[in-house]
Structures are given as C-alpha cells and as structure tokens.
C-alpha cells in the first residue's frame, strides 16, 4: 500500500481504482456487520421506509458506510500509483466477509 518510488514506463495512477474497490469491500463488510449485529439483537436499525421494514434502515446504513469510505479513500489515493495486490486482496476478503455475514445460517450459529 505504498507509493512507488519510480514508476515504470506507462504506469498510471491506480489509486482511484483501488479506492473504489476497497470502498466496495468496506461497504459490503459494513452492511454485513450491521445486518449481523441487528440479527443478534445488539442494536436495532430503525426502518427508513415503514412498509418495507428494517431492511431499508440496514441497507441505508451500509450505503452510507460505503460512500463515506469511498469519498475518504478517493480523496487520499486518487493521484497515487500504488501496489495493488494487497489492497485488492483486502477488498476481496472484506466482500467475502460481508456476504457471509448476511447469510441467515450464520446468524443462527450465535
């Protein structure tokens, strides 16, 4: 996750792409965590739209986490050339965790 000292010929600033992918990972994990904690009864996210129920509040929270993370990461990384495998690997891990945390059988393990 560091800036390259010397960029190879044709190298481009890939920070904006990495910011988008990591933000998506953070958003996925954030949504999964909100859903998981809500199902465990740690807290209850209020509904944003009553007829659709609590899912509207939970997903809105996930979207806010995603967008905030994206804005922060993009503003910091947009002009940088960065080593990609670590950041992208972390993005994939967060996406996988986020998906797992939204699975009902996982909630019932706790």
């Amino acid at each position, binding site marked *: 996750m560091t800036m390259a000292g010397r960029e190879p010929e044709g190298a481009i600033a890939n920070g904006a792409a990495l910011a*988008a992918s990591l933000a998506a990972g953070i958003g*996925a994990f954030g949504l999964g965590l909100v859903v998981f904690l809500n199902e465990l009864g740690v807290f209850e996210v209020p509904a944003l739209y009553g007829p659709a*129920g609590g899912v509207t509040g939970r997903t809105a929270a996930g979207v806010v986490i995603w967008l905030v993370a994206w804005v922060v990461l993009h503003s910091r990384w947009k002009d940088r050339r960065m080593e990609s495998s670590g950041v992208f690997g972390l993005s994939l891990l967060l996406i996988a965790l986020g998906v797992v945390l939204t699975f*009902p059988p996982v909630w019932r393990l706790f």
Partner: protein
Amino acid sequence: MDIPLFSYRSILTMLHGLGAGGGGLLALFAALFALLTMRTDGHPDATVERRSRNLRWLIVLAAVLVWGAVIGGTYIVFPPYRATPPEGLTDLTAYPRSLLTSNPETDWLHSFAMETKEHVPWIAAMLGTAAAFVATRYRSRILSDPTIHRMTSALLAICFALAAYAALLGTFVNKVAPLE
C-alpha cells in the same frame, strides 16, 4: 367479464425481476465476456478506444440496472410481499411471506431465500458501481492495463455471481408464492 392477463403487482414484480434484474444480468455477462475477450497488451489505439467506450457504457448500464432491481425490489416489491394478513384469513395467496411461513416445507423460502435476497443484492450494486467507476475513469486502460483489467473483471464477476444467486432465489420464491 374481463380477466386481466397480469395484475398490477405481478407487473411490478416482472419489471423488478425480468426487466431490471434480468437486464442487469445480461449486461453484466456481456460486459464480463467483452472485458475478457477484448483485452489488449499493446498501447491503446483508435480501435481499442472505440471498443472501450462501448464497453464502458455497457458496464454503466449494468450498474444502473442492478441498482434499479435493488431499489425497486426493496421499496416497491418487498412491501406487498411482507404485508400482514388480516386476522383469521385462511387464504394467504395475497400475502406471500405469510403463505411461505405457514408451511414448514416452504418456510425456508422466506427464512433463507428472501432473508438473503434482502441484503446480498446491495453488495452486488456496490461492486457494479465500483466497476462502472473504474471503467469510466480509466477508459481504454481497462483493456490495456493488466492491473486495472484484472480488478474490473473481478468486480464484475463477483457482482454477476451475487446478482445471479439473488435472482435464482427470487425465482424460487416467486414460483411458490407469487405477488398477484
């Protein structure tokens, strides 16, 4: 007596599932296929520029359709699905969630399938948006830069897998307890 071919609620379900969801899946698959087959190792030329422009619009369209399916599903189709029937009602056909949970053999279609469908598509929408952003910002580099190409392909592939999974579960739910 006129019998309508489709009810208003079933038209909404079709717009959600077939229109936005199915269209999004088609666009995602086409974009992924194009991305994987049009990759180039050289410097972008006019042909690559033109192809990447078309591909960019396809990925943006896919993301828009996935968001349409997600928001329409949550805010338009889900409320009538989860509506509570009046006390004492025995025919639950008009109340899909109650119909599913009233039978132990179909309860999983709510407690697993629909509960999963409530959240996973939102993750797909985030990934599709990230891919659309990368395609828009990096233009022909999505075909010529190995890192950007790999990242966009992976985001689209996961987005497609999650959207397809949600669509499959939605098909099961709609088969047993359609919104009519």
